[in-house]
């Protein structure tokens, strides 16, 4: 098991190096000179030169890359050009907000997606299955930022039930925090629920036709037990591998959801950084999400092996 994890870690290293080169190149290709923006209206040549030296922009590109990646490895992702805060600190500040949003969204997704997937697999070909599929496909086709706008229109503007925007830290007032976050989490969760439902359905369909399910039924076990104990547990394996994919969807979905509900999280940070040409922040975010994604993939692989006794023995 340990050698499997180590081997997977080794494979991840070249990928991470490539991402870092890509992220670095991206910044070098961005239009507009950050130094000119910082130097202000006068564009005093001495100031520009000083800033270039300060941010080591006069070094050759490979030197700049190694300086950057060396610093990144010890947790120094540079300083935000706009707020003068270290990028890592900025990300650390916003990340808990997005984690709360993502966790709540995931709960919505699991509670809706998995039962719907199981139900439509059991009732394959019936009206229930048909409706579940139509709803899931609609969930995939609705742009979630529009769903957010429509919810604000109905729930906040018309019925005035929930606030349209804002954020309350969870440790300050948990109840209020959940209340404010429930709409964005629902919007983000529905798209995931659709993906989850479709995967659960197809995994369940594969498992339900297998020999051991037929054996379990032949033994006279209750249908409920066959479905939950025998079928679903085995269908869970491919669903677990999905978690890495869902992570990507969550982060990307958070960008738009946070923009609509003005949630001060990770997603809003990247949009603001893009518009302010805050390169260091954009770079830091892309690097952190990509590494996060690779780590999630690694977890998914390990979980896959742990869940499958046949692979575990090898």
């Amino acid at each position, binding site marked *: 098991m340990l050698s499997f994890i180590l081997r997977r870690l080794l494979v991840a290293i070249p990928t991470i190096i490539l991402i870092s080169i890509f992220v670095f190149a991206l910044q070098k290709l961005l*239009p507009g000179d950050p130094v000119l923006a910082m130097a202000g209206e006068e564009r005093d040549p001495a100031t520009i030169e000083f800033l270039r030296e300060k941010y080591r922009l006069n070094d050759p590109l490979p030197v700049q890359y190694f300086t950057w990646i060396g610093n990144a490895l010890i947790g120094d992702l540079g300083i935000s050009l706009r707020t003068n805060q270290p990028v890592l600190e900025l990300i650390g500040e916003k990340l808990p907000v997005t984690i709360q949003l993502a966790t709540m969204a995931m709960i919505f997704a699991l509670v809706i997606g998995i039962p719907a997937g199981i139900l439509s697999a059991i009732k394959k070909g019936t009206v229930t299955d048909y409706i579940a599929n139509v709803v899931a*496909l609609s969930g*995939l086709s609705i*742009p979630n930022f529009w769903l957010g706008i429509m919810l*604000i229109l109905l729930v906040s503007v018309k019925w005035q039930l929930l606030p349209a925007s804002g954020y309350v830290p969870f440790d300050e007032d948990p109840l209020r925090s959940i209340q404010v976050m429930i709409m964005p989490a629902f919007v983000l969760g529905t798209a995931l629920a659709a993906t989850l439902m479709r995967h659960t359905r197809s995994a369940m369909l594969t498992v339900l036709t297998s020999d051991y399910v037929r054996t379990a039924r032949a033994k006279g076990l209750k249908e409920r037990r066959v479905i939950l104990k025998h079928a679903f547990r085995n269908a869970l394996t491919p669903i677990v591998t999905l978690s890495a994919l869902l992570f990507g969807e969550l982060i990307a979905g958070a960008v738009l959801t946070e923009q609509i509900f003005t949630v001060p999280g990770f997603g809003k940070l990247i949009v603001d950084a*893009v518009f302010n040409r805050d390169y260091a922040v954009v770079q830091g975010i892309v690097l952190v999400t*990509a590494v996060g994604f690779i780590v999630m993939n690694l977890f998914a692989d390990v979980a896959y092996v742990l869940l499958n006794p046949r692979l575990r023995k090898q």
Partner: protein
Amino acid sequence: MAQTATPMTVDAESANDPVLDRRPENRVWKKFRTHRSAMLGGVLVAFFVIIAMLAPVLPIADPTATDWGAVRQAPSLVHPLGTDEIGRDVLARMIWGAQASLLAGVVSVAIAVAVGVPLGIVAGYFGGWTDAVISRCTEALLAAPFLILAIALAAFLGPSLTNAMIAIGISATPLFVRLTRGQVLSVAAEDYVDSARAIGLPTRKILARYIFPNILPPVLVQATLTIATAIIAEASLSFLGLGQQPPAPSWGSMLNTAKNFLSQAPWMALYPGIAIFLVVLGFNLLGDGLRDALDPREQ
């Protein structure tokens, strides 16, 4: 549809002819035609394509003409879908917006296919270090979430519809590299490819005659489904201000303005969203239907 050697006669007998039925083109088309949701998808897509193409000749208002006397008017006979914050006709902007959305969907996927499929074929067929380099780069690009990558690229290229299409196209490319590579690996292991090699066919011919036609169906399915994703991505970028620039209309940017007038002019937000939903649903249904029709195992 491929030409058949024997002349086709349409009568009751040949319609049920098991030999005729076994020809793959006939089978695929027949399955597709009876696939109700796929046909619905096809109709939805066709509707938007026709509307987008007819935009210049339809009797609608100028989509960029402002009318300060008719600001944020509710839907009426003159303006069937109402007007926006500077008095422009929402219906006209929706119809012209269809052009931007469909164009973005199709062009960005065309970019992804044109770059991704050849790279996937090279990686899958030749293997070795070319495969290693292409595969590692693909994995690295896949590690960044699709939309984050598209946002970062669109930001670096500068905000415009063309650049949004390029950004979405590049972000979708690794999907096609990976898919094509996997397909090529399984097709290249088939006996007929071995025999083609054994009789000394040049690689170019093997690729063109045996590999390419066999990897085409899954690529086609993926392309259709990716158009749906790309349309949402374009709307998202335009919504963030990184796509189509004003005053040119786009569904995403219409929603961006609409969210500021939710209580005064809800129609501004309603219709562009429904349009995005329907066209994306159309492509998703079409893709799912194509997959079922092209899958020889599904009956």
